[in-house]
Every structure is written in C-alpha cells, then in structure tokens.
C-alpha cells in the first residue's frame, strides 16, 4: 500500500513547493498540465485499459465549464453548486450517450464519439445563454473554508489534490475485482461474459468515470481562467487528449501525466524556440506533433512510459493476503453419476446451412464425456449452444433440471457451468493469481464506489485466497505472481482451468484443452482432469487428440454432418465401423 501512496505524497509535496520555487509562467504551465492530466486519466481508463476510443472527452470538459459559468455569473450561485450542477449534468448526458453508443461495435464507437463531440461543440457555440463564440466572462473565485483561490499559485495545490485523489481512487479500482473486470473489456469481452461479468455495465461505468473526471477538469479550468468560450472544447482538443495518452503510456495512470506534461512542454518549447529560428512557429508545432505521434505508433505502440519503465528495475510483487480470509460459500455437489447437463433435439441453422441437427447429449457428475468428430461436424457450434454463446433454433438444454437454452453465458455461468477456450484467453500482463481470481467474479459483490474507496478489502482477501487455493489445487503454486503471458502454453491452459474452477462449478466445459500441448503437458492435464472427476465434477470436452480422449473419457459422443453418429465407451467407438468411415473418409 505504501508503495502506491509514496508517489502521490511526492506529487503533493512538489505541488506545494513549486509555486514558491518556480517563476509564475511555469506555475501556469503546471496548472495546465494538471488539468489536462485529469482528463487524460479518464481517457487512459476508458481507451487504454477498457479499449473504448473517444474523441469527445473535450465536450465533457466543456459541460463542466459551462455549467459552473452559467450558474455563477447568471444566477450568482456559489462555484460549489456550479460543480454539483456540472457533475450532475455530466452524469445524465454520459449515461444517455453511453447507453446509446457504447453498444457500437468496433470502430463505429470512436466515430460515434466524434459525432457527439462535434454536436456538443456546436451546441456550446449556439445555445442561447451560453454567450455564443465569445463566451462567458468574469467567473468568481472558488472559496474553500474562507480561502479565496485566486491566483495560479493557489490553484496548483487544488489541482494537485484533485489529481492525487483521482489517481488514488482509480488505482484502487484497478486493483480490485471491478478493476479486473474492466481490464477484460479491451480484448476479452467474450471471456468476461463467461465469467459472469456484465461487460455492458462495466463499459458504461468506465465511460461515466471518464466523463466525470473531464467535467471536474472543466470546472477547475473555468475558475482558473475566469472566462469560458467554446474553443478549448472542440474535437481538436479531444484529439490532443488522445495524443497525450498515446505519447505517455496508453494503459498506465502515470502515463497520463507523462503524456500531458510532454505535450504541453513540447508545445511550449516549440513556441519559444521556433520563432527565433524560423520567424514563426505555429505550423511546425503541428507538423512535429503529427510526425511524433506517427513515429510512436510505428515503433512504441504502448507509449513512452513502458519504455521508460523497462529501463528501471522491476517492482517487487505484491505481498499475498496473509490474513486467513473466510472461505467463500460453495455449491452443494450432486451425487456421482447424476445427470448434470442434458441436451435434446438441438437444431442450429445459419442461413441455409444446418450446423446441428437433432443433437442430443448427456453429461453426468463425476464423469468425463468427450465430443469428437471430423472437421466441420458441428462440434464448435454445439459447444457454443451449450455454453450460451449461441441460442438454438429448436430443442432444449437443461442443467440440473433447469432450462438453460437461450440463456446468456453470464446466466449459465452463475448456475454452475464454467468453461475454457480453444485459444487461451488470459490477460497476459496480469499475474496468474489475478487471472484466476477473475473466475470468482460472480462470487463477489463489491461495487464501484466501495472498490474505489478501498473498502472491499475483506471480500478481496476472500476472493484472492480462493484463487490461491485453486492455483495450488492445479499445481501451479510457484507461479502465483508470474505474468500469465510468460508461461508456456500447457501451463496457460491449466491456468484457464484453475480460473474455471474458481467459480465453484459443477460442470466444466473444455474446448480443445490438449491442442498444441507437448506430451508431458498432456500428462499433467490428464492427471488434473482425473482429479476433477474424482471430486465429483462433470467434465465435457471437445477434442481432436484421440490418444488423449480414448485414455481419459468415460463416455464418447461422435458427431458427423451436424448429427450424432455414435456414442459409447472408448472401445465401442474405436470398433464402430461407421466412426471409422467418418474419420478416415468414404468415397463412392
């Protein structure tokens, strides 16, 4: 904890000292860097970590600025009410825009942000009462407990406090259960849903946080400048915010500050130096920036902070939760051999293609069932139907007697079904412990605010202890704090299984778990699955490796052309002539 707090204290200290030591002009610069950093922080969370690119953050800065400008000059209210109003309006608009546009797929989202960013900008310039493009002047000072915050030097400390608190809150958030969920949003939303994470809600929360930070920056800006006009809230500024985080470190909080500082300082240097060299400077600043961003994106895609960090010694890993946290409640395990999952008469069509026709399947507790079949037989489709990724056109699936066909992956996960993925979906930068803890997401409850305020430590300890238990269970205790991406594939697959086990499932669906594994790794995997079988779990696996399947399974189902071809014990399957024909091929 102290390791994280130290840089924040240093920042506050620097902010306190700076106005005494530096000339006034530099203090102004520092203030601007601080204000930009606030916006950039939100953008790092939203774009760098959660993968939603926004060109429109400047519009939210504008909302914060204009709200307080109107309330303080036209209605004579206190700036604090202006802040409140700004934050409220921001919340409302962000929620509306978020609900409308966050569902936009892929690259349509940033285009959407461009659209509303532009729309809001033109509104600022045209709405009556906002002073048009001339703006609003003569905003009053902010008063804190009798202290008038009038000049730049006063603002430095206020901005620094706002920054420090924001970083602390966001840092807490990123190291919590909610934070882990947010980190899946960029590239693994599908996996997140299978772990019970409500990705749509997470995205909206991140969007709102970023908007609120921008709005706060706008409020401070308005009372610093004491003049508000639309120019700083244009899409051009929105693009500059993006440039800041690209330069600084797109996915790190401190990168936001670095990027804001770099951009501001370089602009300043160029404006000072270039007139002396060329006679005028504006154009070169733009050219320089453009080229700089292009170079950074070509050669250092994560921004400059990771490059800097690589030069420093690696930080020590976080200490384990030492307190013995109470164990999380577990589901009652049904008796061995009891039917867990039953699928009957499943049909799935994709246009004219019938991928699954009248498929039936049964998986019992304490047994390993394998689903095999030649390429194109429809195994993946069936798997997706069972795990909730697709909904069947006909037929039904029940789990412990309850209908689950058509339910979302999240709902199915909550009922006690857990899965792994054909192409391993771990978050490579996160430690094994944190990756596995993702599996326990639905066993926790702490919300956004509690996480930010660091008040969910008890629950977090319980979740991490559970994750540790599962990691020990699968035999990877030595790799608790290793980044998951650095493990060989076989161990990554086992981490995925540990993550699946962390949700306390009764049935585990494994998608080609042995693919790409070496012989020794397959042995380890087989032993693990044997162990799960002994403990009463049901296992369904889709596999191509026949050695693996035949040695391990209790029951095998063979598919061909979307239908069930045969089912039985491994020996029965190997001697079934229809199966032989299906695999080795038939010709007329």
């Amino acid at each position: 904890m102290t390791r994280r707090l130290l840089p924040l204290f240093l920042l506050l200290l620097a902010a306190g000292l700076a106005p005494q030591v530096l000339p006034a002009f530099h203090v102004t610069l520092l203030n601007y860097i601080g204000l930009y950093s606030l916006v950039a922080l939100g953008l790092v969370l939203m774009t760098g970590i959660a993968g939603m690119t926004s060109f429109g953050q400047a519009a939210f800065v504008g909302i914060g600025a204009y709200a307080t400008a109107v309330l303080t000059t036209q209605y004579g209210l206190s700036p604090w009410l202006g802040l409140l109003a700004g934050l409220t309006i921001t919340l409302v608009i962000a929620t509306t825009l978020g609900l409308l546009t966050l569902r936009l797929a892929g690259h349509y989202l940033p285009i959407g942000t461009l659209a509303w960013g532009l729309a809001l900008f033109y509104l600022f310039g045209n709405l009556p009462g906002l002073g048009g493009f001339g703006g609003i002047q003569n905003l009053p000072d902010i008063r804190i407990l009798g202290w008038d915050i009038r000049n730049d030097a006063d603002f430095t400390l206020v901005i620094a406090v706002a920054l420090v608190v924001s970083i602390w809150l966001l840092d807490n958030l990123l190291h919590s259960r909610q934070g882990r969920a947010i980190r899946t949003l960029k590239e693994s939303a599908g996996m997140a849903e299978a772990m019970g994470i409500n990705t749509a809600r997470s995205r909206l929360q991140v969007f709102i946080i970023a908007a609120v930070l921008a709005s706060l920056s706008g409020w401070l800006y308005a009372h610093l400048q004491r003049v508000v006009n639309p120019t700083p809230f244009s899409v051009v500024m929105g693009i500059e915010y993006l440039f800041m985080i690209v330069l600084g470190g797109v996915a790190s909080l401190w990168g936001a500050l670095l990027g804001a500082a770099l951009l501001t300082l370089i602009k300043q240097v160029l404006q000072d130096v270039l007139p002396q060299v060329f006679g005028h400077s504006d154009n070169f600043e733009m050219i320089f920036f453009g080229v700089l961003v292009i170079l950074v994106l070509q050669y250092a895609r994560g921004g400059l902070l990771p490059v800097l960090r690589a030069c420093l010694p690696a930080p020590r890993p976080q200490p384990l939760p030492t307190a013995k946290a109470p164990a999380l409640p577990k589901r009652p395990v049904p008796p061995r051999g009891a039917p867990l999952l039953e699928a009957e008469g499943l049909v799935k069509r994709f246009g004219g293609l019938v991928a699954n026709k009248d498929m039936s399947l049964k998986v019992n507790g304490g047994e390993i069932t394998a689903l095999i079949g030649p390429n194109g037989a429809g195994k993946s489709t069936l798997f997706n139907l069972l795990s909730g990724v697709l909904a069947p056109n006909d037929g039904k699936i029940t789990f412990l007697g309850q209908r689950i066909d058509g339910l979302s992956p999240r709902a199915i996960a909550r009922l006690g079904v857990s899965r792994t993925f054909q192409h391993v979906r771990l978050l490579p930068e996160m430690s094994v412990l944190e990756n596995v803890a993702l599996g326990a997401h639905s066993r926790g409850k702490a919300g956004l605010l509690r996480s930010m305020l660091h008040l969910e430590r008890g629950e977090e300890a319980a979740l991490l202890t559970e994750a540790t238990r599962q990691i020990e269970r699968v035999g990877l205790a030595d790799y608790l704090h290793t980044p998951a991406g650095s493990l060989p594939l076989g161990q990554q697959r086992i981490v995925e299984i540990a993550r699946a086990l962390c949700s306390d499932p009764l049935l585990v669906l494994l998608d080609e778990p042995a693919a790409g594994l070496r012989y020794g790794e397959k042995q380890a995997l087989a032993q693990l699955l044997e162990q799960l079988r002994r403990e009463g779990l049901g296992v369904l696996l889709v596999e191509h490796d026949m050695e693996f399947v035949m040695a391990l399974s209790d029951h095998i189902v063979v598919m061909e052309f979307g239908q069930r071809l045969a089912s039985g014990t491994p020996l029965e399957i190997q001697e079934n002539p229809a199966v032989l024909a299906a695999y080795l091929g038939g010709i007329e």
Partner: protein
Amino acid sequence: MDTSILAFLAQDGLTTGAIYALVALALVLVFSVTRTILVCQGDFVTYSALTLATLQLGLVPGTVWLLMGCSIAACLLDCGCALKHRHWRQIPGLLVRYLSLPLVLCGVASYVDLATLPAALQIIMTLAIVTPLGPLLYRLVYQRVAETSVLLLLIISVAVHIALVGISLQMFGAEGVRTHALADTVLMLGDLPVGVQSLLVIASALVLIGLLYAFFGHTLYGKALRATALNRNGAQLVGIPTQLAGKSAFGLAAFIGAVSGVLIGPLTTLYYDSGFLISLKGFVAAIFGGLASYPLAAVSAFLVGVLESFANYGASAYKEVIVFTLVIPVLLWLSLKNPHIEEQH
C-alpha cells in the same frame, strides 16, 4: 422563397454535394481496401486548389518540393530494403520509378514561366504533383502498420492530417485562394440562371464516378482492388500484392482529391485548413453509406450538400448539430447489421 432562390440553393448544394460525393467515394475506397479512414482526403483537395492557384500566379508551389522530398524518402526506404536482401539490381529501377516524375516537375516549375502556361497544362501539372502524394503517403506512413487495428490506423490518419495542415500553412501561408474559373458564363434555363462552372463541376464529378465504375467493373486491376476490399486473404492467394492494392487505393484517392480541388477552386475560397471540414462532410456521407456502399455514399453526399446550402440560407445555427447527431442512429443501425467487427489487436 421563390423558385429562383430555390434553384440557386439547389444548384449551390448540388455543386458542393458533388465534391462531397467524390470525397466520400475516395473514403469508402480507401477504407474498404486498407481499413484506413483517410482523414486527410480533404487535404488532397486543398493542396490541389492551392497548388493550382500558386501556378496561376506564376509562382513555384511548395507542393512540388514536398513531392520531391517524399519521393526521395520513399526511394531511400525501398533501396534500403533491396540492399538488405542483396537485390542490387533493383536499385536503378527504383531510382527511375521514384525520381523521374518529381525531377521533371521540379524542372518545369523552376525554369518555365508558369503564369504563361495554358490552363489545361497548369491543371495537368497540378494533378501530376498531387496524385503521387497518395501512394508515397502509403509507403512512408501506412505500409509498415498495414495490419494493425482500424483504431490505430484512424489515429495515425489524424496525425497525418495534422502534419499535412502544418505543411500546408508553411507552404501556402494563411491566406485563402480562389483559382480562375474555367468557364465564367452563365446560362439561362428559362428564368433560372445556371452557372456553367457549376455544371462543369457536377458533370465532371459524374463522369469521374462513371469512369471509376467502369474501372472497378471492367478492368482486371479494378476488379483486383475490389477483391482486396472483399477478402484480403483471397486476394493474396490470387497473387495480388497487398502493397500494390494499398498504393493503388491511395493513388486513386489522391487523384480524386486533386480533381476535386481543381473543380471547386474557382467556386469557393479555400484556406490551408479547409481540408478538415471537407473531409468531415464527405465522411458523414460515407458513414451514411456504411463505409461500404458507393451509391448510398454518393447520394448522401449530394443530400448533405443541399442540406448545407439551405441551412446556410436559413441561417440555422443548429445545422451542424443536426447533421452530426443524425450520424449516431445511422451508426447504431450499421452496428446492428454488422455486429462482429470486434477489432482485436
């Protein structure tokens, strides 16, 4: 409002609409082939108009030196690659390919009295200067990152646009320009005055659209570009080099931009930074076409032009707000139609 004002506004709207249509077409083309949203398309338009205006004044346009510079840079990059693989024999060919046109243009610009050149030659020279900037841009900036996500390509495009605007200011200064009209006369259609220049713009745009249609539908290279847009793997397997497709798309886009600049130059005052708004409006039209359909994009562009014309007349302060807000439901609809644009990266 009476019919003459209506006609005037419609004519004005269709004229600018024609330019937006060309911009939209270029955007759709480049996006479908390279997944790049070419934010700087409008800059090709302004570069073209500003270059032509400078030529008409008898001065050497800075664009010719920009072309030279970029050509040298790209040539060096390719020679470097050739050296790395020990293909010495390719180097003379590279030098010729990259440097011959720029050298000729620089020579003409420096030693010929530009103001006395006939208008047609000036136009041809402008097109010759601006069009190669497209493929050079691809080689210098995009080729290396051709496989990254659409998002990253978009951010790079924004950076390119900003750099180009800066260079434009440097080369042409902050003053606006208008080029000499190709035709000053005004026809009378019954009671309605119709400017010949406007007709020329609309006609040229339609002709260009027609030529593009013929190119894509009936030539092998055109079909190859379409194929790359449809299926990049398939295009590779058929022997279409991805770089060729990228450079061709950018080249066509630059050509379309250059022609647009020549057409619109006499009708509007263009400044070094006018490119952004031109790109933006063409982009809105392209979005209405789903970034995929040429006819829809073209029709939307004409509509945007007409809407803008009428809104200007009605002094509506909210015209931009309306247009940009309308983009959102269109995007939502597009998103529902193509849900699986999950860009992994």
